[in-house]
């Protein structure tokens, strides 16, 4: 556990120093979104990487958080922080309620059910025009502020969102190192065996589903208050799949992997812009290559690199002597 904490502290230090090392406002703006995506990917990873339960409806929780926060503040004039808390709780309750029937399903059926849920919520955003503004979106969401500190620049948003993201990561690291984390991994490997050993698999699955939904809802609220505008297209099926890709590319079951995956999928299109019209092709190729040669995700890649370097070092020393 202590080692994990040191690792986390190092990571957090790097994240907090990054803004000082980059110039140009644009990259910072993209990094804000990397933070939001990291939260979402970590949330999904808890469910997929640890408990082994797939969800193709994460974008719906993300969207619900965003819309609830947006509507409560812009339409009803609530305080953004209260709205954020209420939105997170509401999303959590919803996930808890639908979790029981949905998580009884396994494999493809679970994927289908969560997919269906995601689509239903998407349709609600689109069609409930009087409340959500429909397909043309919902504007006028106020920004966040703490006393006199208004989070209105990219730098301030960066620190706000990454503080949240780091808290979520800390929570996730903690969770996976605990008894619950071990129980989740047991469910992943064999649900029957886990139950025989006294793990309440059904409840635990619903709990981790709820936890991941709450994280997504929080990310949604942060998105709404940072961008100050929301529209359904951000929360469609496509985004659920993108999140899944982030988690898989990063490395299933690795919290830092999720962060890497989120960073890669958010930043890569920006760097590929130099390829102009071919950027999508290059993007696709890169993803294929990565999944082919690093099935364990980017984290596995780093581990291999680390081990390779360790093996090289004594060899070189020997030659010198």
């Amino acid at each position: 556990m202590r080692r994990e904490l040191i690792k986390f502290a190092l990571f957090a230090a790097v994240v907090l120093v990054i803004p000082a090392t980059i110039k140009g406002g644009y990259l910072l703006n993209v990094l804000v979104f990397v933070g939001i995506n990291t939260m979402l990917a970590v949330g999904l990873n808890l469910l997929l990487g640890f408990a082994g339960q797939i969800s193709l409806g994460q974008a719906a929780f993300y969207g619900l958080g965003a819309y609830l926060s947006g509507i409560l503040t812009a339409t009803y004039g609530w305080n953004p922080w209260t709205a954020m808390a209420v939105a997170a709780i509401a999303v959590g309750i919803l996930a808890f309620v639908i979790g029981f029937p949905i998580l009884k399903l396994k494999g493809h059926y679970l994927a289908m059910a969560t997919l269906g849920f995601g689509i239903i919520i998407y349709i609600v955003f689109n069609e409930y025009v009087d409340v959500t503004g429909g397909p043309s979106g919902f504007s006028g969401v106020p920004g966040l502020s703490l006393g006199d500190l208004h989070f209105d620049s990219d730098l301030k948003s960066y620190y706000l969102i990454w503080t949240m993201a780091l808290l979520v990561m800390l929570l996730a690291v903690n969770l996976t190192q605990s008894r619950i984390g071990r129980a989740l991994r047991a469910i992943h490997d064999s649900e029957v065996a886990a139950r025989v050993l006294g793990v309440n698999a059904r409840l635990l699955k619903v709990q981790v589903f709820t936890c991941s939904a709450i994280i997504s809802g929080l990310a949604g609220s942060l998105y709404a208050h940072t961008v100050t505008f929301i529209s359904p297209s951000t929360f469609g099926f496509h985004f659920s799949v993108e999140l899944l890709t982030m988690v898989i590319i990063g490395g299933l079951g690795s919290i830092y992997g999720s962060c890497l995956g989120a960073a890669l999928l958010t930043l890569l299109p920006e760097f590929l812009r130099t390829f102009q019209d071919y950027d999508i092709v290059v993007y696709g190729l890169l993803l294929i290559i990565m999944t082919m040669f690093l099935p364990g995700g980017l984290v596995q890649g780093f581990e291999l690199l680390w081990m390779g370097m360790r093996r090289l070092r004594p060899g070189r020393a020997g030659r010198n002597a």
Partner: protein
Amino acid sequence: MRKLAVMWLALCLVLSAGAVLAEPLRIGALFSVTGPAAFLGEPEKNTLEMLVKEINAKGGVKGQPIEAVIYDTTGDPTKAVQLATKLIKDDKVVAIIGPSTTGETMAVKPITEKEQIPLISCAAGIKITDPVNAWTFKTPANDHIAGEKILNYAVGKGQKTFALLTVSDGFGASGREQLKTLLAKKGLALVADETYGPKDTDMTAQLTKIRASSPDAIICWGTNPGPAVVTRNVKQLGIKIPLYMSHGVASKKYIELAGAEAAEGVMLPAGKLAVFDKLKESDPQAKLLKEYDQAYRKAFGVEASTFGGYAYDALQLIVGAVQKSGASPEQIRTGIEQASNLVGVSGVFTMSASDHNGLDLSAFEMVRIVAGDWSIAQ
């Protein structure tokens, strides 16, 4: 020797710096060139590139060449926000053209307003310029102008009760809202109000319901391919009620999709570009539309579309403003606001502090489809 080389290099640098022409005027553009709204973004991008080349070949604006920095938003509001930041912070543009859709524009608007960069949107949603913000403009005519054109024409034909069939996306939702308000204002009756999904392939259920309410006319509001399906379904069901379409399908593509036979007699308000060869010589836009269409055909091998025209007008507004007031974002903003009688593709623009669209009813022409082609509706 080394010293000499360094000096030589320095000399080269100084010389080459001197040889560089006047600093270009950097204009940013956000178009959804790929993704679901590619039908908007592609002609917009093509038009802008073509026009910039043309202007630079003629010596630029006040001797200053234009450099267009164009990014593809893929129709995603989040990406549009990031790219708008990139245009402002990294590329240091003086004005931004686009984005292509209302959703993206609403997402980008708070940023350009905060950073005080003029934004000339190529999206039609009325929310963009109502309420007016000093820094936000748009070139497509408001939906309610097209709606009013239809209703004025219909009233002239003695039609009093209407059925609406609108698509459930941004375009349809806005059209539905505007039409309902207009109907109420004009004291006309709304007898059926149906919607369909953007990907639906059969609207007979909605049309059967509409037929049961026996309206004097049906108004369908959507972009391809939905309205083409509606048109075919209307013929299949043998409905004889007059059918109006929105300006969203004012391209030959629609007639192609629906089939000339099914589309016969359908009426719609079209931007003048669709019927430029049928306009009177005296029409102020006739000459410009013809030139634009010819240039576009020459460069890309297809006919020019209304959507490309949105980008055309946006650049013209910026160029006009630079010529009149100057090249800083503030001067461009003031210049655009003062534009008056500026002939463009979408219409004749006269902006003011309270009107950041600047188009009126004359931007549209009511057309009827006859034998697979447009004809001015009488």
